Each structure stands twice: as C-alpha cells, then as structure tokens.
C-alpha cells in the first residue's frame, strides 16, 4: 500500500486558517513567500488578519513584535533559512528578550528545499534558535503533527520557532493524535537501542526500527518534536534504561537535536550517543533523498550505527 505523503507546510497552512477563524487576534505576517509557505487560504479567507510586509524579513519580525505588544498573536511566515538567520538578532532583541507572543513559522526546513540548493536549505536554524533564551523550538514529524503543534504553539504564550518541510513526507500519525510541547512521543518501545529523531527523519527512524526488529534488535523510537525545551525525562530514561542512542535529524549535527541529547548524556556522565544528520557541510541542488543520503541520513545507516553501538 502506498503511504500517504503530505508536506508539513500544508499542515501549517490548514491549521492557521482554523486558528484565525477561532481567534481574530491570530495574524499572518507574510514576507512575500506566502504562496510557498501555504498561507494562500488564510489570505483569501481572513484578509483582515493578513499582512504582507514585502521582502523585508527584519521589518517583519519587528512589526510582529509591535503587534504582539498590543495583544495580537502574529505568525511571521517565511523560509527557515531567513526566519532563523537573516532575522536572528531581531528575534533575539524584539521577540525573545521581551518574551513576546510571536511565532516564527518556517517552511523549507532542513534540506527539503532540495533543488533550490544550499542558499535555501536551512541546516543551522534550529541550533541557532535553540540558543536564544525564552525561545521554544519545534519541528513536527508529519502533516497531522504539524497541524496539532501549530495549534499548541498558538495556545502557548511566548516566542515559538516552528519548522516545516517543503517536500511531501509520509504521514505517520493518526489525525486524532495529541501532542504536548516539550514532551517526546514514544512511537515504539524497545530495550536494545534508542533512536531519537525529529521532523522529516522520524519516518526513517521508524523504518530502521522495523529492520532492526527483523534482526532481533528492539529499538525504542522517540519523536522529539520539541528540541527546546528538550524532554529531559525521556532522554534520561533512554540513557538509564538503554544507554545507547542514535539521534537522527535533517539539521547540522552541530547544535541541533543530537547535540541537545549529548548535553544530557554528558551531564549524566553516561550513555553512548551517535549523531546522524547533516555533516557540517553545505548542500547543493539535488533530490531531497539524495541530499540526506550524502550525509548518511538513511534507514541503512541508522541500522548500521545502532548495531555498531550494540557491538
């Protein structure tokens, strides 16, 4: 049976319309890439709540901050590369420092803008956002997770960075699945190795666990959709109960999910962690799956690394 595939940016586009209809203070601040970021329906159905500030990301962040001081809940919508790096300091100064209720909602996370090349692939964004005090950092693993976590972010009072995929990825959750910010989802139980993934790589972790199971190795699989605040309890449990962790992410292995998990392991002084992700190198124009493969982010490599950890 063919698995249903939908880009998580579509989940955002649908959720934001539902939210906007429920609450007139929910606004979209577009930066002239609304069509790519799936705010078209919002623009059409809720024109009074729709703003487009042109190709001016810095201004978009500042305008959103000003709106938030007046009780609005603006979603600044752009690509991950720009929403994290071009406006990093505006987010820090005008959104995180005053703890304003602004959401930065970014499509084109990781290497999913594959054919666009390195300029548009965001491999550093979550790490950068993670270092900002007061910031919450989320990447949903599928369409339903995206819808649910966008709603959770809207209900949460404070800055949130949300990252979606450009490309379609398999649907792994049921539409009624519930999500809590900062709480990992355990997708499979196992005591031999833990695979902690987020975003578009969760599907790879699930597949790898199936392959491992066929080999008699039971893997615990976690969807760490929120990398900040990290679910310390879930990571600690993996370290205490299993002691071997493979992290998988569509992000630089520096400062993302893998680093966050290593921080917990290092402070506990135990546990072995192998990080899979983008190998601290820029991408290129190429098919999405090829870009992941070039960096060892494949089912086969997750299996191999898990086996290597078990020894």
């Amino acid at each position, binding site marked *: 049976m063919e698995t249903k595939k939908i880009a998580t940016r579509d989940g955002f586009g649908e959720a934001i319309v539902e939210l906007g209809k429920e609450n007139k203070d929910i606004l979209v601040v577009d930066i002239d890439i609304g069509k790519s970021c799936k705010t078209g329906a919002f623009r059409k159905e809720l024109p009074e709540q729709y703003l487009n500030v042109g190709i001016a990301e810095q*201004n978009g962040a500042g305008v*959103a*901050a000003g*709106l938030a001081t007046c009780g609005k809940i603006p979603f600044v919508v752009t690509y991950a590369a720009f929403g994290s790096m071009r406006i990093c300091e505006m987010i820090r100064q005008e959104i995180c420092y005053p703890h304003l209720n602004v959401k930065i909602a970014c499509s084109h996370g990781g290497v999913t803008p594959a054919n666009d090349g390195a300029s548009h692939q965001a491999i550093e964004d979550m790490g950068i956002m993670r270092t900002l005090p007061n910031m919450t950092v989320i990447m949903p693993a599928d369409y339903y997770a995206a819808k649910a976590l966008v709603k959770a972010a809207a209900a949460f009072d404070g800055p949130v960075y949300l990252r979606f995929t450009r490309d379609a990825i398999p649907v792994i959750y049921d539409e009624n699945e519930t999500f809590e910010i900062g709480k990992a989802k355990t997708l499979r139980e196992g005591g031999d190795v833990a695979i902690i993934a987020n975003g578009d790589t969760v599907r790879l972790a699930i597949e790898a666990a199936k392959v491992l199971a066929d080999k008699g190795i039971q893997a615990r699989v976690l969807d760490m959709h929120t990398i900040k605040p990290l679910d310390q309890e879930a990571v600690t449990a993996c370290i205490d109960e299993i002691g071997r962790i493979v992290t998988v992410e569509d992000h630089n292995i520096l400062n993302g999910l893998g680093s966050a998990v290593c921080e917990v392991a290092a402070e506990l002084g135990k546990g072995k962690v192998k990080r899979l992700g983008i190998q601290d190198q820029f991408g290129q124009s190429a098919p999405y799956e090829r870009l992941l493969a070039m960096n060892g982010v494949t089912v086969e490599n997750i299996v191999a690394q898990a086996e290597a950890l078990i020894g």
Partner: protein
Amino acid sequence: MDQKELTALKNTATELRIRVIDMIWKAQSGHPGGSLSVADFVTACYFRYMNLRPEEPRWPDRDRFVLSKGHVCPAQYAALAMKGFFPLEVLDTLRKEGSPLQGHPSMTKCPGIDISTGSLGQGLACGVGMALAGKLDHKDYRVFCAVGDGECNEGEIWEACGTAYKYKLDNLIVFVDWNNLQLDGTCEEIMPPISLAKKFEAFGFEVYECDGNDMAQLVEVMDKALASKNGLPKCIVGKTVKGKGVSYMENVCSWHGTAPNDAQYKQAMEELNALYIKEEA
C-alpha cells in the same frame, strides 16, 4: 499654545535634562549627548501629547512611545519618573544591578516602556506594528517614535517605512533626532545622509522640519502632524544639538557615551539650572 504653557514645557525640558545628567553622573555610565538632543521631543510627547495612565502602564488605549535609539533612555526614564510611572529615587539606580532602568530600555523590567530597544534600527518596525494594531482594532491611540540620524544607516528603518506607508499609518509620528553626530564622527563623515527629509518623503511620509531643540517650533509642527489624518505616516526631522544645554558637551562627539566627572557635573548643573525661565510676577 499660550506663552505660559510654553514656558512650563520649556522648564519641564530643563528639569528632564537635569535629571538625565544627574542619573548618568551617579551611574558613571550612559549616553548624555543624545539624551540631551532628544530631550525636547521626549518632553513634548510626555507632557503635552501622550494619553497615559501612569498607575496602569499597560492601559490598552494609551499612546505608545518607542525609543528606537534606545541608548538615550535616560531621557525617557526621566520623563517616566516625572510622570509618576515610578518614584524619582529609582532614577538613581540607572545601570545598577537589579535596576528596572537597564542600560537600554527593557519593557519587562521598567513600567512605561512599550518595547525593549537598544539594537539600532529595530524600534521603528515595532512602532509600525503598534500603529498597525491600533488600526486593526479601530483604536485612536498614536505611536511616537524617536530615531537617530545615524540609526537611519540601518536598512530596517526603510523597510519599516514601507510598511507604514502601505498600511496608511497616520497614527505614527517619527522624530528624527538630527544632531549630526554618530559614535565615530559626523554623519557626513561616517555615512552621508544626503537629505533625511527627502528620504522620508520619498518613502511616503508627510515630513516636517524644525529646530528640534526649539520647543515652540517643535510644538507647532507636532500639532500640525497630529491633526493631519490623511493616511500618511508623519515624520519630523528635528535639527538638534548633541549635548544640548551643557556647553562643553554640545556638538562634541566624545560625549556620545561618556559620564561627566564631579567637576563637569557641577558645571553642567549650574548651566542647566540657569536655563529655568522664571514665571512672570
């Protein structure tokens, strides 16, 4: 405005300047030059124009003040204290550990600060967001925003202007504190501004020019700008003197971010106190 009101406003500006120098001297840290150049605009806003409730700093219908050039916050702190947002004694804690009066304004720490600023170029966009929220909610409040001439080197200022024009924010009034000195030298030397008035006009603003340290002129143009409800955002390019009111600071670049020593403080106090205009008998 009659002469009596004008005199009172001028004397309030003098008191504000005295408090600025006093707090920077006590802190032995801060930015006196720009605080003194913007002092008349800050005084006019807080003591003539802004609808505020000091006992309810986050009153939703209040007028907003955005100090985009956040380093001159001693001027705003003095105004807030004089308006009763917090006790005057708090001014003595400027830049000290635990103080609500941070080196650059923090909206979470200091009552009456509408947005945290300090990183140049960012405040105007925030002011645009506030003015936009006012339009969306059909509220009458105005947003007053002070930007520096050097600060206009920042590209985000001009991005924000585009949004102000697009959304017809005639509830936004921007004051450019044109003191012609940046940190490293004169504006012409560091980055020639050509004409800030023409630039703002080209970006769709209704522009007024005046001597930004002449209270009568300032009030005259602000009255006009606030009365003009034609959908255009307003800009006042105010020609000012950095360090205005303290002779040895005036037009001297090095007073951008230096605190006076005891002897300099004494002289400044004498000069500023001499500026008070005595009421007619």
